[in-house]
């Protein structure tokens, strides 16, 4: 089972925190810090698997990928295939990339809710639910279609913000 999906940057700033078990906010942040400390010191030449996150139970493994400024981390128990999860991270990132066209850290920051909606189509209840990119983006996009654009408020897009942030 996938126990948790985390995205954070090199400094350990959280960009997505998703736990598939009930865990309090404080402990969540503690786990994030612990995993960041474990992962950030590993050079990219080392393998993508790691053990030893004390707060997540003795049988848990950390499987992670490092893309540019971001770490994508899945914490799983021993009933998952390591390489399978590694591929799943790739699928998740490719799905994000399709949604945001060249996804970057800023997209994750300003659309933190959408990242959750995309993840929901890839993982549910700690289990992989869909791996087909076409199907994932169909589900997310059709959900988006249901939202009528807000008419009574001026819309300020990300593009406008990129300038001054």
């Amino acid at each position, binding site marked *: *089972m996938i126990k948790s999906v985390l995205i954070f940057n090199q400094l350990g700033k*959280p960009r*997505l925190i998703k736990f*598939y078990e*009930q865990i*309090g*906010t*404080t402990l969540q*942040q503690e786990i994030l810090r612990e995993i960041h400390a474990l992962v950030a010191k*590993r050079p990219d*030449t*080392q*393998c993508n*698997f*790691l*053990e030893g996150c004390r707060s997540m*139970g*003795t*049988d*848990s493994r950390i499987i992670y990928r490092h893309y540019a400024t971001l770490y994508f981390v899945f914490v799983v*128990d021993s*009933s998952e*295939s*390591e*390489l*399978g999860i*590694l*591929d799943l991270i*790739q*699928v998740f990132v490719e799905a994000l990339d399709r949604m945001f066209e060249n996804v970057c850290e800023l997209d994750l920051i*300003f*659309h*933190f*809710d*959408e990242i*959750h*909606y995309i993840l*929901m189509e890839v993982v*549910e*209840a*700690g*289990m*992989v*639910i869909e*791996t*087909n*990119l*076409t199907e994932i983006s169909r589900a997310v996009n*059709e*959900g*988006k279609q*249901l*939202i*009528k654009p*807000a008419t009574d408020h001026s819309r*300020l*897009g*990300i593009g406008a*913000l990129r300038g001054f*942030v």
Partner: protein
Amino acid sequence: MAPMKGLTVFIADLRKCRSHEDEEKRVNKELANIRTKFKEPGLNGYNRKKYVCKLVYMALLGYEVSFGHREAVDLVNSAKYSEKQIGYLAISLLMEEDADYGRMVVAAMSRDIHDTNEFNVSLALNAVSNICTREIAEVLTQDIVAQLLSPAASMFIKKKASLCLLRLLRRYPEAVNAQQWAARVIPYLGHRDIGVTLSVASLVTALAQQFPEDTRKAASFAVRRLKSLVIDNEYAAEYIYYKVPAPWLQIKLLRLLQYFPAPESPELRSLLLSILRHIIDVSQDTPRELQQMNAQYSILFEAINLGIQLDIDQGLMQECAVLLGRFITSREINVRYLGLETMAHLAAYIDSLDTIKTYQGVIIQSLRDRDVSVRRRALDLLYSMCDVGSAKTIVSELLRHMVVADFTLREEMALKVAILTEKYATEYSWYVDVMMRLVSLAGDHMGDEVWHRIVQVILGNEELQLYACKIALQTLKAPVCHESALKVSAYVLGEFGHLIANAPDCAPVDQLKALQSKMAAGSQSARAVALTTVGKFINLFPEIKTLCLRVLDRYRGALDAELQQRACEYYALATLESEDLMPTVFEEMPPFPERRSALMSRLLKREADTEDQRTWVFGGREINRERKLQKAGKTAEDSEEPPSAPQVLEALEPVGLPVADGGQTPEELARVAKSKRHYARLLWENDGILYDGDEIQVGLVAQYKPPAGRVGVFLGNKSTAPIYDISITVTSVDESNETQLVVQPAAGQGPLPDSLMQLGQARVFFDVKCTDVFATAPTLRIAYTMAGAPTVSELQMPVTIAHFIDPVTITVADFFSRWKQLGDAAIGEAQNVLKTPFLSTDSGAIQWLRNVVGGAGFALIQGADAEPDNIVGVGIATTENAGRFGCLIRVEPKPAHGLTRVTIRATNPTVAKVVATNINMIFESR
């Protein structure tokens, strides 16, 4: 989603903050703002959505958000999808399962699950898998099953429904009635939609572990589905991931099959074999592209795991061993890592380790890999592949590596070295040498289990003792001596020092001196052990008594209470006039009874924390075979001897090593005292805890209507790991009891759950009927398996003849005439004078005595006794066939002496005796 301006600005604001303090200030300002907005009437949907969104963002940054739940529920109830979506997201991320507005959420979920818009259904299903309370499980399971099985539901919904069910099944196995629908889910494994099959395969994997009988058909579905993917190439093009067809489904199915025995039908068997062969053949060439290699190898590793697990073709396994040998030298580090891991699995099952042994050098090399993850896997593999032939090399390599190993790895290494050495030792000297070296090298990194175990082994093997003494003395004489080494040495010399007393430089004086030289620097616990050794020396070597007394004398003034007490007691013992007591107290310890090594339990505990059961554990073939046998034998009660002797919990933990001289550690004594206290309490109260251990807790609820009664037994899982194979039975210790006390499970209750998760509870009700007077309480037998280890606890069950006593009110005059009658007749009288020191210290003590007598079933007769504090009571025991027996009780407390006299007169001697024993026990354990 259309961006919300306020939210975007807020996030941008936070990003501009230079310091954490700035950020905190901004967040607090916003929290105050949102609080006021939420209080204002007429907040529109858009704003509510915006503010809840901000709260979610703050929670992501780690700020505690303690409000806004109600607004999130409002959003869930909104008709607008965008608001509903955020509402559900906020609830999933912020809500706690025991929240009081949970009911409103359940209502919203059950409405949305039946919505015609499948996106609303999807949101609700998603929310259920995030926050599944028992109520949700009970209310919604049927609807979700219907969504999964209904022909009208889309693939999109079926996927979500099946994983949602999986979550509910794992959390509340007893609430979802899985047996009713398990068999109907299985055909979906053959569904043409790969997404549906993938989700259902996860669900079936969980079902297969709980209901192997009902899901037997799943194996053939899985094999055929694999064939269509691997051999027939039937799949939708979108599911090709870097040239590999649906790798996740392949992995899932290969994993699912590991929970079933190898197929019996020859057709299926050969089909499966050809699938495995096909997968292995495809992987002979290394793909060039990294992603493709990942995907392909992920399938390959799973296929090898399945092959190993089913044990269907040893030739194929040898081939795998060669393939894995190539992997562990691969330049690709992930492959190296997984190669080592899978080879450890292989080593746990393969008949001949020869192929694997040819890579021993490479594996030892991997212990020095730059990556700690790889080092860890190499350690596991070395542990799994060790046998008598290679033990010496492997152990010495591990010891050598111990010094430089990571701190995080050392404890595990130490445990593994200890286990391997014990298992494969062929020479006694080797065992002692290695273990002494181990405690010296890694003493700081291991628990007490290791040195306890060494002492146990030495005590149990006479041939070891002489050599162990020599080494112990040598260790003490060395310039430095580790704490744990000091404890072992002190213990061994205390027991067997006389064996070497005639050798040069080993005279009693030398032994004492060596001990003294290291004692001063030892910790409190080490000094305590050493003091006991000094006490033992007085007994072993009368010639150095004066010297020893001098040491003890010095510690009589020790600041530490434990040390002081030991010193004083030993000193007093040794200076007694009578010399009989000394040899009795310090008699040689008997060998420890054989039981499962605590080291093993500790190691296994590390691997017990996983949702799906592990199909194998690290460690040689024996332990995995044992696990297999246990799994196979769990349904057949009449299978031959259980693989490892079940343990009686009372005697089990911790590995009792006498810290003092009595043979029981303080913890053990405390444990026994505690369970006695629980038992005693249930002699006069109807419900309470009977046993409270580290793993389980047992509670009892009883109701009596003499001569019948009903007793409910509640079993709770206190550990973090699930327990399986639970059975709760009642047996009579005394054969003759069976007809006098009839105990039967109450009619109309369901079977026990197959497993208990953390904090889960199971219960059984028993009908009891007393047909005749009985003397011995029955035994409650609770058996279960945790982390592959079967455990049996036998507890005395507080059901005695005294429980079948009803109060009877009679006049004072009647009481005295009967009291006298019974006294004259001398049919059954029991009298005890009990120590009750609490009488003088506790003002409520007299009332407590009254409560006890009343609770034990007697009617109190007021004013019968001239002494107001005295208590007299009358009760009558009812049996079905032997009639009724009157029973009178008189309790005379004497606070001044701290004593209480209890007299019981009954028309049956056994009744009097049992009541007296019960009262005795109740007083004692107060």
